[in-house]
């Protein structure tokens, strides 16, 4: 198989695009595509400051690499979750992020959850009923809170995450199976900022296959963490990804078509719901000041108050 642009030996065949590229042209193609999506979905402009949430994985470090190559002013944010799982997962993730930033002279903000809130994510999960024994719920809640706070307090114009098309298609698939219309209405490449304190959130990789983001990290020599989060084993989203990949193998482009058709339906107004408008009514949390859908403490503050109270009793 030969590169369509230069005729050299191709390293990746993207069957959904009928496009095979060599390493050099693939390393150029990814930033070109990313820039196209940034403009198409009006994510941010060249003069804007972007905060990239990095986990040490291929998607977030690849995204940071692309944004810097495109000339954007992009700082990183690493959130230390305190997950060990027998492999020192969080420690290894942090090392990758720090090395990436140091090698390129970039600014990396670090927030250690245990230092700030008094417990690691697995400890917090064990002390609450949230998530039925799995820490993913507390983890997601905490990451969203910290990311929003850091983006807002740091005066960033956008918070960028490394979600790829497989992530988006898996979430879409799950929400479609359960007809979670409220979630469907909110899913998209951009979540607009809210005057009450929600930072603007963007996903510049939302139309790139996970295979492409992984290939980009390999071609660029990015040292990312291969291990998955130990708590992701058995996650529903992984089962959905597997199903979608089996579909893709027989029908190239199926994942992309699924996601793009959804975005078109959304743009045509087919997903506007009552639940969407009620969710737009926001209150200010009396404890942390972040926006919340309820006229009392937000879910983050309620959860962590509970964790600290039980932590103290146990101690």
């Amino acid at each position, binding site marked *: 198989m030969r590169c369509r642009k230069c005729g050299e030996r191709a390293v990746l065949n993207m069957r959904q695009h009928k496009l095979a590229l060599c*390493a050099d042209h693939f390393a150029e193609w990814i930033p070109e595509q990313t820039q196209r999506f940034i403009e198409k979905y009006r994510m941010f402009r060249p003069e804007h400051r972007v905060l990239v949430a990095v986990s040490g994985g291929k998607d977030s470090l690849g995204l940071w690499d692309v944004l810097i190559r495109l000339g954007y002013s992009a700082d990183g944010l690493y959130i230390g979750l305190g997950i060990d799982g027998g492999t020192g997962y969080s420690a290894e993730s942090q090392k990758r992020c720090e090395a990436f930033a140091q090698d390129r002279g970039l600014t990396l903000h670090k927030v250690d959850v245990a230092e700030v809130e008094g417990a690691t994510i697995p400890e917090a999960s064990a002390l609450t009923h949230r998530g039925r024994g799995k820490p993913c719920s507390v983890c997601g809640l905490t990451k969203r809170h910290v990311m929003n706070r850091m983006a807002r307090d740091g005066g960033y114009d956008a918070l960028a995450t490394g979600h790829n098309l497989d992530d988006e298609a898996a979430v879409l698939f799950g929400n479609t199976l359960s007809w979670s219309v409220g979630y469907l209405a909110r899913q998209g490449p951009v979540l607009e900022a809210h005057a009450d304190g929600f930072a603007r959130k963007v996903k510049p990789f939302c139309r790139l296959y996970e295979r492409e983001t992984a290939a980009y990290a390999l071609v660029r020599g990015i040292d990312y963490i291969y291990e998955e989060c130990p708590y992701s084993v058995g996650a529903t989203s992984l089962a959905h990804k*597997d199903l979608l990949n089996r579909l893709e193998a027989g029908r190239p482009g199926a994942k992309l078509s699924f996601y793009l058709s959804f975005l078109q339906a959304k743009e045509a107004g087919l997903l506007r719901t009552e639940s969407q408008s009620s969710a737009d009514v926001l209150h200010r949390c009396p404890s942390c000041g972040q926006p919340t859908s309820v006229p009392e403490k937000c879910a983050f503050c309620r959860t962590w108050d509970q964790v600290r109270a039980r932590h103290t009793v146990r101690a």
Partner: protein
Amino acid sequence: MTAQLVLRDKTFDVEAGQTIRQALDRLDIVPETVLPVRHGKLVAEDELLKEGESIRLVAVISGGVEGFA
């Protein structure tokens, strides 16, 4: 006439002379989920497997994703 495909801690002995994609299909590994790496370099799945060589398969799927986190 064999080659090896290595995915995480598993090693698969496969016939040399076939393409990597053919070998993946026979092992019921969805090609979308892995990237073949030869001597540290990414290679396309239509490459022929050479006798005695070992190809590393990098898993592309990352962990659980929840909401916007």
